[in-house]
């Protein structure tokens, strides 16, 4: 049965339950509760929004890392999936009149998966730099279509404003912005982020995840173990696109106004930057990277008009010194070294 698609059949709830005893999961649980309570305790809308912003991109970066970190493919076209997620939400709301958040998120995730399948099918045969440039070109095509409003859906470079979606039939979209964000939407994003982390954690430790790592580590060997590598690369693109699309869909509501800029290659560059900053070799690196990138940009913007320079310098230095380790991996390595030294002495 060589055409079998990935299966979702054997979810092992027991196993997951067993794993809850894991110390890391406990830490995660505490962190989740702390983050969930944060807006309520501080009533700080700015921080809440910043966190929401970071979490959306953390989801996108996690999704992107499925391709870069786990399958070993540098895509420069992930803006296409992020943007698809965003546009699906706004177009579904305006053209199809769908206002329920859950439906919108599912739709956007699926649409991003479809775009991921198309771009993936065209590009998985190519390697390294050609893969990067091909995904760039294909995503840029999508950008041009949106910016030129081909098909009349996107309203060109002006973009489209977005209303706040409702939730399970409750017309919560009418609530004031503060309440909506701090009391509801922030928590939706938080749940999505943690759900993404848990799902990815399992998937990347499943046979499927192991297969992606096989392809990353040694494509020839993987093929010589009977793995149809092109198909699995395609699967990883689809999975990655869906998660990035979810991040985009969530972010669409946060930003409230969608323009083709989110489909442009500089957006892809930002997602790559975030992931790399945090570290592609680590599971949680992308989350740290998204936070680091956005905070860095905010701080740099506040301190200097030359914030591009700051970001460029950081990127340059991170690439040259940390490579795939990123901040998170670098910090881990540092902790290990300190521990080693302590053990030695």
């Amino acid at each position, binding site marked *: *049965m*060589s055409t*079998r*698609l*990935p*299966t*979702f*059949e*054997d*979810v*092992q709830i027991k*196993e997951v339950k067993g*794993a809850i005893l894991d110390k890391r999961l406990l830490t995660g649980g505490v962190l989740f509760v702390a983050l969930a309570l944060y807006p309520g305790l501080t009533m700080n809308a700015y921080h809440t929004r910043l966190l929401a912003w970071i979490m959306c991109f953390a989801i996108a970066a996690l999704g992107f890392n499925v391709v870069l970190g786990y399958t070993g493919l540098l895509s420069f076209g992930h803006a296409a999936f992020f943007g698809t997620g965003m546009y699906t939400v706004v177009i579904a709301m305006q053209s199809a009149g769908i206002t329920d958040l859950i439906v919108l998120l599912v739709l956007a995730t699926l649409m991003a998966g479809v775009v991921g399948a198309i771009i993936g099918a065209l590009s998985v045969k190519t390697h390294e730099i050609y893969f990067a440039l091909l995904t760039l070109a294909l995503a840029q095509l999508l950008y041009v279509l949106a910016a030129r409003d081909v098909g009349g859906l996107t309203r060109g470079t002006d973009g489209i404003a977005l209303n706040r979606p409702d939730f399970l039939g409750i017309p919560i979209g009418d609530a004031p912005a503060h309440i909506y964000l701090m009391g509801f939407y922030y928590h939706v994003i938080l749940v999505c982020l943690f759900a993404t982390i848990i799902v990815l954690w*399992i*998937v990347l*430790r*499943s*046979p*499927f*995840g*192991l*297969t992606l*790592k*096989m392809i*990353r*580590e*040694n494509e*020839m*060997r*993987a*093929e*010589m*173990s*009977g*793995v*149809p*590598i092109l198909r*699995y690369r395609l*699967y990883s693109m689809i999975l990655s696109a869906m998660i990035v699309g979810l991040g985009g869909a969530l972010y669409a509501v946060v930003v409230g106004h969608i323009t083709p800029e989110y489909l442009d290659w500089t957006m892809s560059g930002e997602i790559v930057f975030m992931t790399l900053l945090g570290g592609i070799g680590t599971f949680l690196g992308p989350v740290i990277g998204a936070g680091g990138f956005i905070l860095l940009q905010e701080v740099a913007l506040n301190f200097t008009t030359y914030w591009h320079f700051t970001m460029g310098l950081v990127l340059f230095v991170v690439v040259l010194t940390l490579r795939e380790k990123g901040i998170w991996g670098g910090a881990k390595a540092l902790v290990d070294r300190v521990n080693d030294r302590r053990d030695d002495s």
Partner: protein
Amino acid sequence: MSTKKTESTKQDTPTEPILRTEDVRKEFGNLVAVDGVSLEFYDDEIVGIIGPNGAGKTTYTNLISGALSLTGGRIVFDGDDISDLRKYKRVRRGLVRSFQIPQIYDELTVFENVQSSVISRNEKNNRLFTLTSRDTDSIDETERLLEMFNLETHADEHTEHLPHGVRKILDVAMSFALRPKLMVLDEPTSGVGSREKNAVMETITDAAIDRNIGLIFIEHDMELIRNYSDRIVALHEGRVLADDDPSTVMNSEEVNQFILEGGV
């Protein structure tokens, strides 16, 4: 030790050959690398392939594994024509090759390396929500394989720091995990210290006999060739120079000519 398998001969087994190449050719531009090779291999024998550099040994194995496409002829495996079959599908049918330079996954542990092969062989790569660390079937089998190849002590190590010999064995263990019917080994002992060489070969042949796996191996070390093969095929300039039992081949005039020239 040199007589380990001489009793079993192909005359005793009137079965079909597991692999048959019929007038197989490969041309690169003007260069004919493999020039009409017709050979049969059985699943209960160990065949050594010798030949000087450029004789077409590696090209021939690449044709068998599907890494190169045929210019002419056809390949029949286990009764089916597999000439146009994709690489991974040949593997799934039980035709497996290993490489001169160990092809393993450096960032994974030894255990995961072997487990990945077990999972691939079971075609379970598409399971999304099973943790590999809880997949008892593949874990049990992996453990057995590690034991078989004396790799248990390295199980949790990342492979990048392993000694070369261990990497080599791991590579073979991963191929065995695929439960092949026939294995093609490209210099299974290259880069392995002379004392270990026999041990490596011993491990491989034991496992092959144990599991009824046919073996084809390319080797430069005449000692190993003589000790471990039931049959020797000598290739020269893309053609079969000799195909017979070891003593006949080693005593042949033509074969000796290129042995002195150091190629083998």
